[in-house]
């Protein structure tokens, strides 16, 4: 067990160095996990085929603050898209019990988001999400530049500011 500990310690240290060599900032990369969309098509999280920045928002049909966050952003989402070219990917961590309610809720609320189904929490684990809601902002290179756990009213404005900052930087 000690060996494993040192192994991981070594890896962690070596990443620090390699990350500093390859990036100007010490940021983490978007993991590649194979998920399904609501239609059942295979989608790789690292190859979404969208232009512009991406917001990943982890949610579930049973999570009240998640729905509050996504319903609030829904009201301004079209403005954000026009302004920044952003795509919001709502990653549902609903498992088999409630998974089938996801399209009902998403369409019932008329959301325009891309929705991915993470029914066995593979992407949730890979992204280090402890609890939902958890929101990540990813630049066009796949670097995670901002993340926020939990939601309280007003957090959407912070996310919007970070998004504008990111778009400004890359222009």
């Amino acid at each position, binding site marked *: 067990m000690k060996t494993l500990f040192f192994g991981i310690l070594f*890896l962690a240290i070596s990443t620090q160095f*390699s990350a500093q060599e390859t990036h100007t900032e010490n940021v983490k990369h978007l993991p590649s996990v194979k998920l399904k969309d609501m239609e059942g098509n295979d989608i790789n999280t690292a190859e979404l085929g969208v232009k512009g920045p991406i917001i990943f928002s982890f949610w579930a049909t049973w999570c009240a603050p998640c729905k509050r966050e996504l319903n609030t952003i829904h009201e301004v989402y079209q403005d954000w898209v026009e302004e920044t070219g952003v795509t919001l990917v709502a990653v549902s961590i609903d498992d088999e019990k409630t998974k089938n309610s996801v399209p009902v809720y998403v*369409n*019932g*609320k008329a959301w325009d988001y891309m929705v991915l189904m993470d029914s066995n929490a593979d992407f949730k684990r890979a992204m280090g999400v*402890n609890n939902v809601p958890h929101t990540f902002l990813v630049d066009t290179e796949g670097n995670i530049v901002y993340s926020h756990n939990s939601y309280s009213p*007003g957090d959407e404005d912070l996310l919007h500011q970070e998004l504008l900052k990111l778009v400004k930087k890359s222009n």
Partner: protein
Amino acid sequence: MTIKKISLLIFSTAISFYDFSQNNDLNITGNIESQFQYLNEDTLIGANEPAEKALLNSYMNVFITKGNFKAGARFESYLPRIQGYPNRFDGTGIGMRYIGYENKFVDVTIGSFYEQFGSGIALRAYEDRALGYDNLLDGFRLKLNLYKGITLKGVYGKQRLSFQNGQIVHAEGIVRGFDTEFPLNEFIGFLKNKKLNIVLGTSLVSKYQADDNETFILPENVGLYGGRVKLRYGKFTLDGEYVMKDNDPSADNVYIYNPGHAAIANFGYTKKGFGLLISAKSVDNMSFRSDRTKALQDVFINYLPAMNKTHSYNLVASLYPYATQPLGEVAFQAEIVYTLPKEKNWGKKLGGKYGTSINANISNAYRPMQHKTTQYEVDSNRVTYSAKPFDLSDSLYWRDINVSITRKMNKKLNFILSYYNISINNDVAKITGDAKGIIHSNIAILETGYKFNAKHSIRTELQTLFTEKDKGNWATAVVEYNFGSHLFLGIMDQYNYGNPNEKLQIHYIIGTVGYVKESTRLTFSYGRQRAGLFCVGGVCRFVPASNGLTFSFTQSF
């Protein structure tokens, strides 16, 4: 294989990858969670003070990828475990670890992994940290992406049963599984680009456990097999899965030799502003564990999802929740979500400026018909009855009828009004020792949100539950105040004013302060927590009553 050997392997592979594939970035992600409790004795609510007084659960996940290589581990620590966790969890050590290789065609994992076949009724290895639920498979997994979307999966392993002295304890049995999926439209010429989309799948799972029973000759290898189909035509979807299980005498079914089955079907229709779902499920003798002597939530190989809505309000979610009866049930569910259009309808703006949406849901579960096959209690083969899919009796296990209306009045104010009518058969799905038969309850909830400005907002919940059985009526009030996006204060009072025992008509008050900064979250709460079932996604654990301080810390990286 010992942990030492595996860790050496991870270590050496990691180094070799580090040395030779400099062009691929090394990526590390993960998370940390720690929960600390300091508990007092409170005889009124039955809360005990543990001998250690203070309890601490911690864990950290680390996932490493570099090019096609991946590795990961979870360190866990229980010093000792917090209340409600499986009482055999103790020590500090590695609770999950794997290495793997993945490219476009293959995905190999050696060590621990989580997996799901189809809808999970054949196989699901799953974890939920909050519940202490973890039935990971330890062994070997191979996934192949063969040709035009055809995928094959093979798994072979032993399940995690427990975590003792800082080490994984495996279940006795070995689990073997094989799953295929065929997206027909990808490779059948005339289906290409058609509106009708068809995906087929098959699963085969088998477990081995030595026969150590003195009374019966038990099957050592038990098989489960099934298929699934998923159809989509425009806005309509229809999917179904059916699995059969060989005779599998176990402590759950009192060592009968009946076969088992599970079937699930879902029909959906959605368009912008409207969603409809109708589901049906039939289960008979489907407890399938990699140790036939185990009970509760231990080492389930498959998952039988309860067919009902997962509620989030305190009184609805924690007093009378329902989980699937693995020995048998027939269940149905229907759900509608409709958003009233914002524009004029029948001369009136029904939806208001910001829209109004309605969510209605009905679910029920019944005991299946079990037809006697013999005049004796069991026949000569120890088969006790025959059962057919969706053959139900009129004995109710569960019913939930609920409606919720969400309306945003203006930029500052919004309401959610909900009503629930829940009936649960406490003789079958036992959740309380204080009642017999079916417990009927009516619950009404009003949630209000008000945003003062960009930084300050308040949210309140008023909940009331009426029942003539069990502990009688309850009322709950929740107030939550947010200062900016970093700090929040919350207070909740659950008042059991209708308890037939006047001494127990008490307030369970709990206060919480939370601090959130990006991916870090700290919360302190202090107060009384009543005993109850804590459920996530239909998996529940019993949490005893407590009185004291809880501190929790989470971090993602």
